[in-house]
């Protein structure tokens, strides 16, 4: 006689029956099997066959355990004090938790895919939003930052977000004394600070700050102290406060520099304090106290309005009220200083944040694009999980119908599924935190440092983490509950009766699953098109000919003691020997000076051309250069000649123009020999007023407005005409990065009081200034595009694999009736591709609308770039086709006999 007990016990093993109860059930069922076996033997059946027939009464899928599981006896009360009311509920959840873990463990594919999908979505969204939050929304550490405002004097004819933001000392004092809207107003202005030490001179970014500045921000010093009111008084011992970044980079964070004396711009100042990392007022390295006085302006109406003011709005005072308040004061100021106020001017009060966002606008646009992209990614992740859960719901429909029939209440099922959903969401959250943490680290490393505010510290944002977690939990709960709701909506006896012969798939969730696949495909295509466009634009920018050769060029900006370099003579007496010394260095092919850093053109000026009259203003950019400028930058000569040494030495009034200048102002004639006058030069004190310059040459165009902008007319004139050249460029045959020391030596040998600021290779500068933002955008978008593609592949595959598995019976019948493998393959792939094609159609339509937000960030490529559209669509179609093909191939290999015997 067979050992029935063993067969029964195996089936009960996954239940939590008490040992006594399990023994009873084993005994009872063994007896039943034994009775049946004996009866069969008596009827003449062989022993083996009788055993097989008796056991055949147990159906596949361990129906016995499924039926017993909902019974109370399968859940013996935990050994707690009898009558403790809460124990029952908690222990119920505990059992659900264990059951959920077991269930998820048994379907590792589903579990892993769900957790990874959601984890990636949560992590990516959190990381990107953390960046946006810390860079664009809350870059400042101060608590009162919402009340900090600045004011603009607007000319109504100018664009809305422009206007004068610099004020004179008198204006500042008038505002401070007569306004009623502020708890405090401070002023600051930038000042180049030359720090002289043993070997030479270094340049620091300084800021002159007015009394109350440190109290205004409420931030104490990290070491030492901040300035006190007495430090601002005339005659007080000169002091300085150092910023954290400068402390770390220049002094290696050495605390012993505190209380030491430094010679800054010729004044010995005691370092009294070092500020914490997030204090970055006015982007300065050092802060120097300055008390503003009216006398400074007396009798000098032209004093430049160079003070930036920041006010702390009184609580309850709106920006409009402050504007009204300041308008009264400025109306009276305008009478005294008419040159500072345009006709019909208005006062505009804006939050401090707007100044920052304005300054970093291009990168902000990129960040918001990336944020939108990560939103799409999160949507894809959530629909993917929803889909997986719906598929699983259908698979488990029968299980839940059985549970309900056997008396498990709906609340019981809902609780079980909620626990399952929570387990998934929590696991995904843990992965998400990890992804966000790692992702943020890489993002911070990848973000171009000059494109974000100095004070911004990018860290993981908890509210966002909580938000994405909420989304994940809602997704898993909502779609996890589908089977329970399904089970209670349906006629419960159905799934039992048809015993799963789902010819049609039978589940009303099918359209929902299909809709999710279509949506995923559409979203993913949108992401891919965005990534593709940014990639094309980046490549186009890199390939764009700037009009000059930036390789093998070392460049630096010189910070000179302004009081010693006021006249042309003083400047030339420095530059000529420095250029000669640099040219003499081994490996140096040429050295030049200029007033702007390439590829950018110089300042803008109105022009006049001798013998030509015109309506409206004629404009050009212009800059001062030395004779080797064009050779060092390899800018090609188009017509005439470049500057000769004699031009420079004699400070001759000659000019070289670019092709655009020629095309615009001399369309049908040669400009050589013509004369031009620059309006801006009238303001330069050291040049002969109203000088006419003779055009001697035409150069090829350089991208003088940046890579995204049309060429602008440009005029170059000899630097020996003014004292304004500050940029040094050296073309070398070796790596220009190694030139730093040699160049500094030659500069200091000429004047040890001159500092080299931002030294480096021109190539690095251009790469950083022009390409860092686009590179960041396209890299992040490409990563998102790839993740989106993977998620969609998983989504398409899981839905198709499931529906194919459901159709095994149908496919078996078709094949038994003569359908060939390829026909079946076509049928399944066709079903999948229908969804994919629908998704692509919607995706293209959506993209054509959405890509417009990319328009400002694209260079050299249209938002409706056909190659990008075709390539991304093809990529998605091929990937989706592979996802369809795998389950289809499996279906085509179905053995009809096996499929039909399946039930």
């Amino acid at each position, binding site marked *: 006689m067979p050992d029935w007990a063993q067969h029964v016990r195996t*089936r009960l093993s996954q239940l939590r029956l008490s040992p006594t109860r399990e023994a009873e059930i084993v005994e009872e069922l063994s*007896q*039943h099997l034994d009775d049946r076996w004996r009866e069969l033997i008596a009827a003449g059946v062989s022993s083996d066959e009788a055993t097989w027939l008796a056991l055949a*009464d147990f159906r596949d899928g361990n*129906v016995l355990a499924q039926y017993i599981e909902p*019974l109370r006896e399968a859940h013996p009360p935990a050994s707690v004090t009898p009558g403790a009311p809460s124990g029952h509920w908690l222990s119920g959840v505990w059992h659900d938790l264990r059951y959920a873990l077991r269930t998820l463990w048994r379907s590792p594919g589903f579990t892993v895919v769900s957790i990874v999908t959601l984890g990636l979505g949560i992590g990516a969204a959190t990381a990107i939003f953390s960046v946006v939050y810390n860079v664009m929304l809350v870059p400042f550490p101060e608590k009162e930052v919402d009340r900090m405002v600045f004011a603009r004097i607007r000319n109504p004819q100018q664009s809305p977000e422009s206007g004068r933001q610099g004020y004179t000392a008198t204006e500042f004092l008038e505002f401070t004394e007569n306004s009623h809207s502020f708890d405090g107003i401070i002023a600051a202005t930038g000042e180049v600070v030359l720090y002289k030490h043993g070997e030479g001179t270094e340049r620091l970014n300084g800021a002159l700050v007015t009394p109350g500045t440190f109290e205004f921000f409420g931030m104490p010093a990290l070491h030492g102290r901040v300035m006190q009111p007495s430090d601002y008084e005339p005659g007080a011992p000169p002091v300085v406060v150092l910023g954290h970044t400068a402390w770390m980079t220049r002094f290696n964070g050495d605390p012993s520099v505190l209380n030491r004396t430094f010679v800054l711009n010729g004044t010995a100042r005691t370092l009294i304090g070092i500020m914490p990392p997030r204090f970055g007022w006015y982007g300065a390295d050092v802060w120097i106290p300055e008390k503003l006085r009216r006398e400074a302006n007396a009798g000098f109406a032209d004093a430049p309005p160079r003070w930036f003011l920041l006010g702390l709005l009184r609580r309850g005072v709106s920006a409009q009220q402050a504007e009204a308040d300041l308008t009264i004061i400025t109306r009276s100021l305008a009478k005294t200083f008419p040159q500072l106020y345009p006709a019909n001017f208005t006062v505009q009060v804006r939050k401090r944040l707007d100044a920052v966002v304005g300054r970093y606008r291009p990168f902000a646009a990129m960040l918001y694009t990336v944020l939108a992209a990560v939103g799409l990614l999160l949507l894809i992740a959530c629909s993917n999980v929803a889909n997986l859960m719906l598929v699983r719901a259908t698979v488990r429909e029968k299980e839940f119908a059985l549970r309900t029939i*056997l008396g498990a209440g709906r609340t019981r099922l809902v609780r079980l599924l909620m626990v399952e959903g929570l387990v998934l969401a929590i696991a995904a959250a843990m992965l998400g935190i990890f992804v966000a943490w790692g992702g943020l680290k890489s993002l911070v490393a990848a973000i171009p440092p000059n494109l974000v505010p100095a004070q911004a510290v990018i860290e993981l944002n908890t509210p966002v983490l909580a938000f994405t977690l909420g989304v994940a939990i809602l997704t898993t709960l909502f779609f996890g509950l589908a089977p329970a709701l399904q089970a209670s909506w349906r006629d419960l006896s159905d799934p039992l009766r048809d015993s799963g012969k789902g010819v049609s798939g039978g589940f009303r969730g099918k359209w929902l699953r299909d809709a999710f696949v279509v949506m995923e495909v559409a979203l993913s295509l949108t992401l891919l098109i965005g990534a593709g466009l940014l990639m094309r634009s980046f490549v186009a920018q890199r390939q764009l000919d700037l009009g000059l050769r930036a390789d093998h060029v070392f460049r630096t900006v010189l910070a000179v003691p302004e009081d010693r370099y006021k006249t042309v003579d003083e400047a030339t007496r420095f530059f000529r020997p420095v250029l000669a010394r640099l040219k003499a260095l081994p490996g140096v092919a040429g050295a030049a000076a200029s007033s702007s850093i390439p590829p950018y053109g110089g300042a803008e000026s109105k022009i006049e051309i001798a013998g030509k009259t015109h309506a409206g203003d004629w404009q050009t950019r212009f800059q001062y250069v030395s004779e080797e400028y064009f050779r060092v930058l390899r800018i090609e000569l188009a017509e005439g000649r470049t500057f000769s040494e004699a031009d420079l030495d004699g400070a001759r009034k000659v000019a070289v123009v670019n092709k655009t200048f020629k095309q615009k102002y001399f369309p049908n004639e040669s400009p050589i020999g013509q004369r031009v006058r620059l309006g801006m030069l009238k303001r330069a004190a050291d040049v002969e007023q109203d000088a006419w310059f003779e055009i001697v040459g035409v150069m090829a165009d350089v991208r003088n407005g940046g890579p995204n902008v049309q060429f602008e007319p440009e005029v170059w004139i000899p630097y020996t005409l003014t004292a304004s050249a500050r940029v040094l460029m050296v073309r070398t045959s070796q790596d220009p990065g190694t030139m730093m020391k040699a160049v500094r030596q030659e500069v200091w040998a000429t004047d040890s009081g001159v500092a080299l600021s931002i030294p480096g290779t021109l190539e690095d500068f251009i790469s950083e200034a022009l390409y860092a933002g686009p590179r960041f955008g396209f890299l992040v978008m490409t990563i998102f595009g790839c993740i989106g593609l993977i998620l969609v592949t998983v989504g398409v595959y899981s839905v198709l694999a499931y529906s194919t598995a459901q159709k095994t019976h149908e496919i078996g019948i078709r094949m038994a009736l003569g359908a060939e493998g390829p026909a079946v393959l076509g049928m399944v792939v066709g079903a999948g591709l229908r969804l994919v094609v629908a998704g692509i159609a919607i995706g293209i339509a959506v993209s054509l609308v959405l890509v417009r937000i990319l328009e400002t960030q694209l260079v050299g490529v249209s938002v409706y770039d056909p190659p990008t559209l075709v390539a991304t669509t093809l990529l998605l179609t091929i990937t989706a086709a592979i996802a369809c093909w795998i389950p289809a191939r499996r279906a085509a290999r179905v053995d009809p006999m096996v499929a039909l015997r399946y039930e």
Partner: protein
Amino acid sequence: MADIDTHALDRELKRGSAELLILSLLDARPRHGYELSKLIHTRSGGQLTFHIDSLYPLLYRLEERGWIKGAWVEKPEERRRRFYKVTAEGRRVLAQQRKTWAAFVEAVRRVTGDEHA
């Protein structure tokens, strides 16, 4: 015909008649599981079959509800067997279910039979 509770009818139809069958068979006298499954099979002319894996869970559920009671009975020269009998509560439920069932059958007969009357 007695008024029937429409909710009860609905529920009974959904739940099927399994409980009714078991309670009816046990109403006559206590029986063990194998006997129950044989009786249902033979009396229904082979139309109804209880699998072992649904019969026993159903018995345990009815027992949990207090409608039937199982007890091990030992007989000389035989292994002990678990016999089930209907409890007082079970009888009350059975009476109710019979009434509902009868009402349902009557209702169906009226609808389907009157056409040919």
